[in-house]
């Protein structure tokens, strides 16, 4: 009786785990593009300068990752001046997203004012600030 019961339970559990596994690997491709986050330790994705449009050039910095996700900064440069900073994030949880949403406008305005990555980090958003400014620095480095 007990053996029958336990083997049934074991079988059911194995089925559930296998289902989870197969869903996980089926989404594997999409996941690695949206969340390369954690398996790549610290930012290794090479940054790249992309298109020049009407005198403005965009430079994309390296992707910076930590346990909450990865963040990549793109700057727009016109006549040698940084005119805009945008970023993409893979943070999946509400808390990280809200921290980023709070910190990045401050970082952006400081960067535009200082025209460099040498600005102070936003308190309570140390991780976000570090990722943001490191990626930014690599984009600035590409300006040459």
């Amino acid at each position, binding site marked *: 009786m007990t053996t029958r019961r336990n083997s049934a339970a074991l079988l059911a559990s194995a089925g559930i785990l296998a289902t989870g596994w197969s869903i996980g690997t089926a989404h594997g491709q999409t996941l690695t593009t949206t969340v390369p986050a954690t398996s790549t330790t610290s930012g290794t994705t090479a940054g790249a300068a992309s298109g020049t449009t009407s005198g403005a050039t965009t430079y994309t910095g390296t992707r910076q990752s930590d346990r909450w996700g990865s963040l990549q900064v793109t700057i727009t440069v016109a006549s040698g001046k940084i005119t805009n900073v945008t970023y993409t994030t893979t943070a*999946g949880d509400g808390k990280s997203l809200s921290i980023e949403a709070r910190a990045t406008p401050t970082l952006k305005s400081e960067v535009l004012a200082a025209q460099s990555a040498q600005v102070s980090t936003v308190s309570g958003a140390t991780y976000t600030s570090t990722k943001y400014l490191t990626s930014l620095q690599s984009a600035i480095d590409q300006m040459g």
Partner: protein
Amino acid sequence: MTTSTLTDSPRPAVATAVSGLTADAAGSAGVACAAGAPDAGVLSRLGAFYRAQSARRERRHDLLTIGGWSLVATSIALYLADGGITRFATLGGAVTAIGIITGLVATALMCLMLVLTARVPVIDRTLGQDRATTLHAQLGRGMVFGLLAHGAFLMAGYALEGKTTPVATLLDLWRTSTDFIWACVALLMFAGVGISSMVALRRKYPYEVWMGIHLTTYAAIVASLPHQFSMSGLFAEGTLARAFWIAMFLATAGVMLAFRVIAPIIATFTHRLTVSRVVPVGPDAVTIEMTGRNLDALEARGGHWLQWRFLTPALALQPHPFSLSADPTDSTLRITVRNLGAGSARLAALQPGTKVAVEGPYGMFTDASRTRERVVLVGAGIGIAPVRALLESTRFAPGDAAVILRASTPDELYLLDEVRALCATKGASLQVLVGPRAGASWVPRSYAGAHLTDLVPWATDADLYVCGPEAWMDAVLRNADECGIPALQIHDERFAW
């Protein structure tokens, strides 16, 4: 001093067989059966009924087991479905993944634990409350270790991934996340509850202290909630996993609220139980009779126990688990209680008219766990009370039931006259064993070496019900095992009364 009450039976024939125990063990069965002459039709009908009842219970047990395991498996599957498997590519990632999985499993176990003690009728009718509580404690150990591993593995994993130390990681998180601080507080509380509920410690604390420590669990659960949703990407807003996790918590809370709070309140107000009489029935023991309305709706049977709360200033805060000592009627309930704890001592002073709040009925020490047409009831001391109620309520053909009562002194054979009368009316044999126990055996010295099957030769093909002091009960169960009585046929109820 004991030989005069050694055997005590309404039937001289059985008494003779018992006296000549070792020489003529098989004789007692022959005499009992001949005296009862069971109708073959009744026997097979009852036998088929109880076998079918037992099969249904086994099926419920199967489903509950599968359900429990499935919940734990699902908690891991959620992580795998989220691509968690890719984490195992690096050492740091793998350690982190193990940390996340242990946290998920521990949380699933926590919900199972709570449901096990929520007194859900289907769980009570399948496992019995005492088995459910034992399982609760076992899962509790697993949960506490799971949570400690969750914390340790995550700190180590994060440290490996971030190329820093676990302590630095912890301090970092402590500074940046309030939810993390709450999670740490929750972990400490869970560990505290786990340690304090270990059996050895539990005995030392009064009931209220132990209860208070357990209530800390609810605070710990609440404290642990925010970080599960904010710090793990797994349960991010809009994900199916989040919906599942929230549903799991809500279902657990709902079940607890329904069966531990709402149902008892409704029962108390519906039945309006009132103490009608308190009668002394032997050394330190009283029978408390209560009247109420529409008690059939409680569906209490002989052998059930309930949580009783006598609404006097001194007793209202202390629920007591006591077994019924008689089969209930639509308007009366009866318990027989021995004074053991300080709370029990006050029960003797209860005044008629005292209102009573009840939770229950609970337990599988009833007709509902029968698997065979024959039945053996064994009770010792105040454990005779539920045996007497079960004897009254359970069905058997005359000659198919044997009752064995035991006590150290004749005074402690509570309700003996009532049991004797019931045995005579229903056709059960009665054997009374009095005297100090023979070593670790469950029988008195004058019976040293006697086995259950010596007293009741057909015991291996019967249901065995045992109720009495813990150590004595263990001895009976050991002997039942030695006699080859299948575990499925053995029923015992364990709680301190």
